[in-house]
């Protein structure tokens, strides 16, 4: 049975609230990265889609998302299998009814989740850049916020069966994810993959003989500034998640911030070195992808590894992201302008597995259901298996689910913009105005008056 979460002291509550208020910076960073990696003629549309996805996700999550996700100690639908209880979905009332917004752990978790679900909804926008219609992206965000995200997040953060793997089957502390590497990033990355498959590549991306000319992002400054903003958001995301979902003491935020920074730095440097060796000069967009890939990996591991291990995890994340971007684009013909699949899905899966390999549990880990499990050494086989089960669930359940939902949605509300929309640019076609109007040359400017 779920155990009640111990209440937070007033100081811990204020610290946690401060960290939660930093999380929107992650959304701002991801939005800028998506806009910068797309074409200039669709930049305004991308930012508008980001605001819309955040808005839709927040409202849908308020209406029904939290009711499915719940929180530890709250009611859930439970079935019994071989004498073990499986908590598979929460049974909260809709519209946050019954949830006192008073600084309790449940209310802080609800606030954090409103931002987290928006962050997950932003991820597929990067892969659908330059061709995904605004209303279709909003509808897809609604599905993600109303069903896919809450269901999986309940399993991980709401006292669900993945978190119960420790108490039920002796698999370490159960599936652990402090900062949302699985429920935000891998889920968002797999949704991005599904959306990319449904949309198909941008016109002109692949020539008839299968060659893939590069379509570079239009603004490296936006992309790199987005990386810096995202870092701030990740400090908040990882720290608040660790306090609320793994029972970490607020003082652990120092370790979390150090590890988050080191993983991002190691990943970005690895990407820069790899691209420097392969192409003669470091590639800014791939280095930015590496940076975010390191941040994503840190979401799983931030509080459970020492800084030296964080550097190793970050470096491997940077290498994985760099090679997988090319692999998806050239070998698998997945046209993903923002690199969302590589950065969020591959980086997140690596982070989850790295936790199984490197984790050290300094304090008793709460993990929502376990209460105070004994402190154990690092890299236990059971913990590794629990992380594998979580990854298997993401690939074997979440990917077919999100593909099926988006495929059905595409039948009702076509995802892809008309050909003239792609040629004209999403800004003019869908919004009626460009992002950079002063850079457009109007013929009437040259008419002598």
């Amino acid at each position, binding site marked *: 049975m779920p155990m009640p979460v111990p209440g937070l002291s007033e100081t811990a509550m204020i610290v946690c609230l401060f960290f939660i208020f930093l999380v929107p910076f992650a959304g701002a960073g991801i939005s800028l990265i998506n806009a910068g990696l797309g074409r200039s003629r669709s930049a305004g549309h991308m930012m508008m889609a980001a605001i819309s996805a955040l808005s839709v996700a927040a409202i849908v999550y308020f209406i029904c998302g939290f009711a499915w996700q719940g929180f530890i100690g709250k009611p859930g639908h439970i079935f019994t*299998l*071989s004498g*073990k209880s499986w908590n598979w979905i929460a049974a909260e009332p809709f519209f946050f009814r019954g949830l006192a917004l008073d600084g309790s752990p449940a209310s802080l978790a609800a606030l954090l989740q409103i931002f987290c679900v928006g962050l997950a909804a932003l991820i597929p926008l990067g892969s659908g850049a330059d061709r995904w219609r605004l209303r279709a992206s909003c509808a897809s965000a609604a599905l993600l916020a109303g069903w896919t995200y809450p269901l999986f997040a309940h399993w991980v953060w709401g006292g669900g069966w993945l978190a119960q*793997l420790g108490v039920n*089957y002796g*698999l370490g502390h159960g599936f652990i994810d402090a900062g949302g590497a699985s429920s935000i990033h891998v889920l968002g990355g797999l949704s991005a993959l599904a959306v990319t*498959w449904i949309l*198909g*590549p941008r016109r002109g991306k*692949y020539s*008839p003989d*299968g060659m893939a000319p590069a379509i570079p992002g239009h603004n490296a400054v936006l992309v790199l500034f987005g990386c810096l903003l995202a870092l701030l958001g990740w400090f908040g995301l990882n720290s608040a998640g660790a306090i609320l979902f793994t029972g970490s003491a607020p003082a652990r935020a120092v370790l979390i911030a150090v590890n988050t920074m080191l993983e991002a730095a190691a990943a970005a440097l690895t990407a820069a070195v790899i691209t420097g060796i392969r192409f003669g000069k470091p590639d800014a967009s791939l280095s930015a992808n590496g940076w975010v890939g390191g941040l994503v990996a840190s979401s799983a591991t931030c509080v459970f590894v020492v800084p030296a291990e964080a550097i190793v995890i970050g470096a491997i994340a940077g290498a994985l992201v760099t090679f997988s971007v090319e692999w998806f684009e050239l070998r*698998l*013909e*997945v046209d993903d302008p923002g690199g969302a699949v590589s950065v969020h899905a591959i980086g997140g899966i690596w982070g989850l597995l790295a936790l199984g390999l490197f984790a050290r549990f300094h304090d008793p880990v709460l993990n929502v259901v376990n209460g105070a499990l004994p402190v154990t050494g690092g890299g236990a*086989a*059971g913990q590794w*298996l629990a992380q*594998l*089960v979580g*990854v*298997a*669930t993401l*690939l*074997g*359940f979440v*990917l*077919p689910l999100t*593909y*099926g939902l988006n495929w059905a949605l595409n039948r009702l509300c076509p995802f892809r913009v008309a050909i003239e929309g792609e040629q004209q640019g999403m800004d003019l076609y869908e919004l009626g105005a460009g992002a950079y109007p002063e850079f457009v040359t109007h013929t009437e400017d040259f008419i002598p008056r």
Partner: protein
Amino acid sequence: MKIVGFLLLLTGWLLVLAAIVLLASPGSRAGFVLAGMTVEALGLTIVIRSHLILREEKR
């Protein structure tokens, strides 16, 4: 073909769940979890292949 791939992904996941529920010894449990993930990898490969074949047909 894509549907077969997705069904294999689901099947692999169910194998993983069955291994956790039905098997008690850590070795056999880990072996069946890995077997389930191998089935998932096969499903993912089929989905990707079907996507590539579809792309080639469109060209």
